[in-house]
């Protein structure tokens, strides 16, 4: 019984990280109509940056945020400027960002080699610490990641529904030309939003670097999970993505605890297929921007 409850708790917490990894992809797909496969390598690249900065300057890994997050905002904004220059549709974006994904993956492999890397425990107090409630352990790194995911998901949802910028984003997502006619600059909105989405990926990378061992093949292993979360959550729906992340995390973790590790990817895939069959528009669609 303890094993199951521990499995559920870890599932909820790791679900927060899944949601954080999926938020960027979901928003850029839902609002910008760009299926950005490069997000997977952004997450990994950010993880390696965090690893390198922590090691080179002997600082707390969470402090690297002040450098990494603005840097990735810039990368995301620049990428959107490029997409505007060449005018891509959803389909082309898939091929182009796949190319970018390949380039970044080989760069990572060239710079950091295929070795397993981990921030040493003397620099990383978050990796080993956990808070115990009863027999259930809450690892600190996952708690922080979960809190960040909740903050970003709720914050983005409020931003999209309450602010002028959010209204502009939704207007652009619905009808670009009409938004322009009402005085919204679709280009600027898209560039800022793209920067924000890569920031979320950068944060996800930070928590990946803090919580686990990193290696180049990691990015590829996220595809199944992130894609399931994005579809289940509904495109551009941030709270839905958070919910979906938790569902996928709990389901795959509980399955792994009860039926062995083989069942986790299968359960994830079954959730994806079920989502495609029964709720292709996502679990909570009311707030969706698209």
């Amino acid at each position, binding site marked *: 019984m303890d094993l199951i409850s521990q499995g559920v708790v870890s599932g909820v917490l790791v679900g927060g990280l899944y949601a954080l990894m999926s938020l960027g992809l979901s928003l850029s797909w839902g609002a910008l109509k760009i299926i950005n496969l490069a997000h997977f390598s952004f997450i990994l690249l950010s993880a390696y940056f965090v690893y390198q900065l922590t090691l080179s300057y002997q600082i707390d890994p969470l402090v690297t945020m002040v450098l990494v997050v603005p840097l990735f905002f810039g990368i995301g904004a620049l990428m959107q400027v490029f997409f505007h220059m060449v005018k891509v549709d959803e389909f082309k974006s*898939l*091929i*182009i960002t796949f190319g970018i994904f390949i380039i970044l993956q*080989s760069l990572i492999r060239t710079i950091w080699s295929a070795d397993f890397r981990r921030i040493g425990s003397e620099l990383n107090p978050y990796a080993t610490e956990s808070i115990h409630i009863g027999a259930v352990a809450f690892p600190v790194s996952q708690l922080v990641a979960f809190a960040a995911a909740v903050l970003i998901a709720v914050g983005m949802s409020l931003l999209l529904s309450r602010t002028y910028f959010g209204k502009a984003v939704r207007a652009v997502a619905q009808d670009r030309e009409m938004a322009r006619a009402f005085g919204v600059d679709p280009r600027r909105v898209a560039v800022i939003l793209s920067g924000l989405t890569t920031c979320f990926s950068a944060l996800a990378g930070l928590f990946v670097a803090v919580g686990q061992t990193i290696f180049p093949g990691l990015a590829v*292993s996220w595809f*199944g999970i992130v*894609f399931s979360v994005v*579809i289940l959550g509904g495109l551009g729906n941030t709270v839905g993505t958070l919910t979906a992340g938790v569902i996928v995390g709990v389901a795959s973790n509980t399955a792994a605890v009860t039926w062995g590790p083989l069942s986790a990817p*299968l359960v994830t895939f079954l959730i994806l297929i079920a989502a495609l069959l029964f709720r*292709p528009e996502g679990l909570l669609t009311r707030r969706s921007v698209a």
Partner: protein
Amino acid sequence: MTGSRLRTLIGFGAVALTLGFFPALQEALDLPRFLVIFLFTTMFWVSQASSWNILTGFAGYFSFGQGAWYGIGVYTVSVLVGKHGWPFVAALPFAGLAAGAAGLLLGVVVFRLRRLSGEIFALTTLAVAFVLAAVARLSPAIDGGTGIFMTGTPIPEFLGDFSTAMYRLTLVFALLTVLAAYLIHDSRLGWGLFAIRDDEQVADGLGVPVFRYKMAALGANAFFAGLMGGVWSLQLGFVTVDDVFNIRVPLFVILMSVLGGMSHWMGPVLGAVIITTLSDRLNSAGLADVSQIIIGALLVVLALAVREGVYLRMRDRWVTTAAIFFGVLALVTVLDINSSLISDFAYAIVATTVAMLVPSGVWERVRAARGGNGRGGPPDILAEDLTEANT
């Protein structure tokens, strides 16, 4: 049988015969043995790209699933031969059948849904490969993370030594795949698939059996990819999950077909020849690390710049193509820049491809500047307009 079909089939037979006798020729002329290995690698990719194109190029459903079908083929043969002691040749058909069945299974799930858009289909196929990888890695009956040794697998004697056997097997299956792609391209099924690609709802309304045709395309794609995967398990020698289910196969088939052109069955064949040559030369020049970066960048550029692929352009400008190809080939041979035969061809291929990648507008202007009366050139009025615009 129409004249053009007869011509194509004669050309097909000629290529098959030439390639069939190549290993004997190589021994007789004492050419480097590496040429045989290079050619069977090329034929592997020709088959993979052509089979991928049956679904994606003809029916317009973009698939990242090539790695999954290929991987099922590799693992079917590896498990049957490496773990259960089956003879290689007996296991081979099951590679194609298992992959084909998996393809049809996915097809039943995803094509029954009207709402499944192209993008979602693409990402679903992407997820399939990673789920299969995870299953193979965790299941002891398949791999269990230990890998399977295929080295020392007995090959029937009539196939010859290892590289000759690989050559013959890949040749037969590559020819079969390309022949299938050609026959589909010029058949009722092919026209139906093209109609689906252009507008699925209209095709459905006009009476194209949309579901059946898409299933046929996906099944054919998976079957041929799996079959060639089964052959390739020998070449891998030591089969591991990371080697089989990585991004390389889907990446290369996409790149080859986009480069060659996805609307014609010859496009992927040509693209496969170009990319295999290029990547082989980059690797042998010690640029293996850079080659993936170059290939990624190439994919970005091609997706943006080339709509119809180089094959159709080469066919339209075949005189220019032949001139550049043989000109560069003669030049490097005479100058003796590089003693290797493949390198000479690589220079010629790259020069021709780059020339064909020049945007159409530039070609029109060149033609217009020459007077605009050349074969297949633009009408005179347009040529004058362009000349005026330039001055």
